[in-house]
């Protein structure tokens, strides 16, 4: 598929295959898209900032469907810190290093004996059971949210990601996408230094 520009799109439309015509002709398509309940707008932004890796300053797209008011702009912070940072820096008030990880992210089933037994501080270091370091990044993500560093990613949303992953083995940012543990870690890593 070729890269198009706005001008090209303006000139296209007639004589195109039906699928292309439908995509280029907005009349009706947006309504159908909206009616399906899948319209969310800007799903994410890869910021172009010299010296920085890809920076994901957006919530997983599926989270936006919870309320249209979430499409309203607001002052956004995108300054997450890594798990390593949180091992050696002051934590936000109200979160104890010695508290169990399960206090932040309730653990059920097999996870009770693994994630459920370690502290919030311990999970920031690699644990044998923490394949792909999901728990490590979830904990850092929670601290970032609590410290106001990631306004687009709330503690509640993180807990839903955890809950869904724990229950189903994946989290769906939108109905057509399933993120497994590795995908979630990639996303969370993009919100951190």
């Amino acid at each position, binding site marked *: *598929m*070729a*890269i*198009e*520009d*706005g*001008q090209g*799109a*303006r000139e296209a439309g007639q004589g195109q295959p039906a699928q292309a015509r439908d*995509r*280029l002709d*907005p*009349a*009706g*398509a*947006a*309504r159908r*898209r*909206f009616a399906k309940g*899948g*319209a*969310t*707008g*800007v*799903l*994410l*932004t*890869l*910021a*172009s900032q010299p010296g920085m890796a890809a920076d994901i300053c957006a919530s997983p*797209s599926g989270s936006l469907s919870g309320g*249209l*008011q*979430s*499409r*309203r*702009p607001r002052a956004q912070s995108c300054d997450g810190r890594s798990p390593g940072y949180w091992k050696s820096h002051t934590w936000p008030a109200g979160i104890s290093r010695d508290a169990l990880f399960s206090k932040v992210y309730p653990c059920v089933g097999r996870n009770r004996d693994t994630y459920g037994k370690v502290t919030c501080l311990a999970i920031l270091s690699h644990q044998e059971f923490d394949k792909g370091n999901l728990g490590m990044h979830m904990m850092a993500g929670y601290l970032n949210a609590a410290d106001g560093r990631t306004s687009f990613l709330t503690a509640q949303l993180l807990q839903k990601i955890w809950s869904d992953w724990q229950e189903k083995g994946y989290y769906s940012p939108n109905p057509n996408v399933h993120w497994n543990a590795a995908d979630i870690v990639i996303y969370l890593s993009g919100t951190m230094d």
Partner: protein
Amino acid sequence: MTEPILWRVRPGQQLRHWGWDEQCVLYNDLSGDTHLLDEAALLVLLTLAREPATDAALAQALDLEDQGEAGAWLAGLLDSLKAQHLVEPC
């Protein structure tokens, strides 16, 4: 009573995009960012690229209700696109 806002694509934006299924990536000429958009957002941009439009005119062009949930969604989307320097009031 407030005047309806007339929206346009920000000058300098070429709206270069590459799409598949119901999503596309779009290069932002002003910020250098790359955005992942859904189909509806792209359609809004391409419609405004033809000519500036108010929320109501845009909703009509897109065959959307300009009130209620659809209207609120469209208003939120325009604000979101404005925050990304893709559109602006004119």
